[in-house]
C-alpha cells in the first residue's frame, strides 16, 4: 500500500463519486415529490452527455453555450417524460409506475442508440487535458471541474429549496402532499418541476463526466443503479446524505478496483447497494425512527 496510489485512487473515486452524488440528488428530487423511483434517471445523464458531445464536437459551439443548451435540453426531456408518461396515469400503482419508468428508459436508450450510434463518443476536456501533479499523484483538471460544478449544484440546490417560493412549495409537498394542496400549492405542477430539475441535474452530470469516460448510449442503467445506491446509502430523500454517500461510494469503488480487481469494479458498488438495502434500507444517515414510517 503506497500512499501515492491511495491518493490516486481517491481522486478517481471522488471524480466518479461526484457523478453518483448528482444522480442520487436527481433520484431524491423525484422521490420527494412523488414517491417514485425513476428508473430512467441514468438515461438523463446519457442524454446530457451525448447532447453535449453533439453540440461541442459536431456543431463546434462554445463550451458555455453548449452547456446551457444541453441543460435546457435535459430539462425539456424531463418535462416531456412527466407530461407524457407520469401525468396521464390516473390509477397509479407502484408496479405500473416502475414499469412505466422502465419503458421510458428503454425508449430513451433505443432512441439514443439510433441517433448517436453504438460507439462511444469522445469529448474535449473543459480546459487542458494535461494531468496536474499532486505530491506524486496526478489529477486531471477535469476532475477539478467536476468537483467545482458539484459544489455549485449543491449550492444552487440549497438556495432553491431554502430561499425560493417554488423550492419551499416542493419541500411542503415532500412533507405532506395533502396539506400542501390545502395550502394552495399545485402539487401536480410540483411533480413536473421535480422531473424538470432532476433531469437537469442528470444532464449536468452527463456533461461533466463525458470528457473522462467517453459516453455511449448503454451507460444509463449502470449509472442509474449506482446513483440509486448512493441515494439509498445516504438515506433516500436526504440530499446531504446523497452527496456524502455518492462520494463515499465512488471512493470505495475506486479502492476496490485498485486493490481487489478492476474487472469486478462495477459489481462493488452494486454489492454495497444490495447490502445497504438488506441491512439498513434507511441508509447510513437515515433516521431509523422517521424511516419506519416510510414503506420499503
Amino acid at each position, binding site marked *: 500500500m503506497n500512499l501515492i496510489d491511495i491518493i490516486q485512487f481517491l481522486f478517481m473515486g471522488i471524480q466518479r463519486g461526484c457523478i453518483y452524488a448528482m444522480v442520487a440528488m436527481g433520484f431524491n428530487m423525484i422521490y420527494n415529490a412523488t414517491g417514485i423511483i425513476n428508473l430512467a434517471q441514468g438515461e438523463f445523464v446519457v442524454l446530457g452527455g451525448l447532447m453535449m458531445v453533439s453540440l461541442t464536437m459536431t456543431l463546434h459551439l462554445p463550451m458555455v453555450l453548449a452547456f446551457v443548451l444541453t441543460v435546457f435540453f435535459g430539462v425539456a426531456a424531463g418535462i416531456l417524460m412527466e407530461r407524457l408518461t407520469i401525468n*396521464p396515469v390516473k390509477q397509479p400503482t407502484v408496479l405500473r409506475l416502475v414499469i412505466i419508468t422502465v419503458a421510458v428508459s428503454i425508449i430513451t436508450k433505443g*432512441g439514443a*442508440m439510433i441517433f448517436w450510434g453504438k460507439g462511444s463518443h469522445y469529448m474535449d476536456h473543459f480546459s487542458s487535458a494535461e494531468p496536474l501533479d499532486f505530491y506524486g499523484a496526478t489529477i486531471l483538471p477535469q476532475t477539478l471541474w467536476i468537483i467545482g460544478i458539484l459544489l455549485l449544484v449543491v449550492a444552487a440546490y440549497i438556495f432553491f429549496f431554502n430561499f425560493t417560493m417554488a423550492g419551499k412549495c416542493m419541500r411542503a409537498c415532500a412533507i405532506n402532499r395533502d396539506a400542501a394542496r390545502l395550502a394552495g400549492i399545485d402539487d401536480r405542477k410540483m411533480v413536473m418541476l421535480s422531473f424538470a430539475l432532476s433531469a437537469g441535474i442528470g444532464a449536468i452530470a452527463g456533461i461533466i463526466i463525458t470528457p473522462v469516460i467517453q459516453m455511449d448510449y448503454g451507460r444509463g442503467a449502470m449509472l442509474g443503479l449506482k446513483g440509486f445506491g448512493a441515494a439509498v446509502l445516504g438515506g433516500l430523500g436526504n440530499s446531504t446524505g446523497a452527496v456524502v454517500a455518492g462520494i463515499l461510494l465512488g471512493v470505495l469503488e475506486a479502492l476496490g478496483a485498485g486493490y481487489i480487481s478492476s474487472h469486478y469494479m462495477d459489481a462493488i458498488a452494486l454489492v454495497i447497494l444490495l447490502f445497504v438495502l438488506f441491512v439498513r434500507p434507511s441508509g447510513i444517515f437515515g433516521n431509523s425512527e422517521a424511516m419506519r414510517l416510510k414503506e*420499503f
Partner: protein
Amino acid sequence: MIGKNSVGLIILILSVIISPHIITNDYYLGSLIFTGLNILVCIGLCLLMGYAGQISIGHGAFVAIGAYGAGILTANYGWSPWPAMGCSMLMAVFVAVILGIPALRLKGHYLAMATLGFASIVHVVSVAAVDVTGGPSGIINIPRPDLFGYLLDTDTRYFYFVWAVVIIGVYFAFNLIDSRVGRGLRALHGSEDAAASLGIPVTWYKVQVFILSAVYASFSGSLYACYVNYIDPGPFDVSYSVLLITMVAVGGLHNIWGALTGAVVLSLLPEFLSFISDYLRLFGIRYQQDYNTLVYGMILLFIMLFLPEGIFSGLRGLLDRIFSVFKKSGQASLERESAVPSSGQSSGPSSAGKPLGGLSGHDQ
C-alpha cells in the same frame, strides 16, 4: 375457471402438435423454440409479479445461472445434460433463497432496484470470472440432451420437447393458482397485513414463489444452453431481464395466459418486424434490427398507459364488448318483435342502443 383453462390448454397442445407440420423452415422453428423458452421464464415471473405482486427485474440472472450451470458442468466437467440441469436448478434455488429472504422484505421500487442490482452483479461476474465462465468468449461444445433414448438432435424434436415442458409448466402453474398456496398468494398481493392476520405465512409464501420462478427461469436457461450449444454473457445482460418484464407486462400481469401471450408476441416481434421491413422500405422507412429496442419500449409504454391489464385482458375485454353488443342488439330486436314497450329504464337490456362506451361495465 378450470374449464376455460382446459380449453386453452387443449388449444395450446393441438397447436404445438400441428406447428412443425406447417412450419418446416428450421429458422422459424428455432424462433418458436426460443419463444417457448421465454414463455417458461414468463410463467414463473407471472406467478411472482401478477399473483404474488412482487416485482423482479432480475430474472435474467436466474436464466444465466441455469445456462452457465448446464454449460459449465457438461462442457468443462463432462457431466451428462440432465444431472447438470438439475444441479444448476439447485444452484438457482440456493441463490433464490439467499437473495429472496432479505430482498422480499423490500417493497415496490426497492425490490425492483435490488433485483436489478442482482442481475447486474451476475452479469458482471459472468464477464469477469474468466476461469469459470470463459469470460466474454463464453463456453462452447455444450451437448444436446437425450430423452428416453432419443437424442434431441433435430429442431423438430427439440421443439416438441421444449413445448411439452411449457405445457407442463402452464398446467402446473394453474394447479398452483387454484390451490391453497395460490389463494394465499393472491391474498398477500391484495394486502400483506390482511393476509398475515388470516394466518398466511406471508414471507415464506413470497420466498417460495420466488424460488419457483427461479426454477422456471433456470430450467429455461439450461434448455437454451443445450439448444444453441454455446453461451456467452451477451444474451443475459440487464436488458434481457427488462425484456422479460416487458413480456409479462405487455401480455397481462394477472393471468398466466397473458404472460404466455406477451412472451409469444414479443419473442416473435423481431421476426415480424424484419418481415415487414421489406414493405416499410416501400414507404421510404429503412427498418433495422437496431430499432427493436425502441419498438419494445414504445409497446411497453403504450400498454402500461392505455391497457394496464395487458393485451390479453384488453383483447378479451374488447371481445366481450363486441359479443355483448351482439347479444344486446339480438335481445333488442327480439323485444321489438314482441312489441313490448320500452320500460324507459337506463339499465338492463333497454340500454342496447347506447354506443360502446355505455357498455363499459361489461369488460370488468
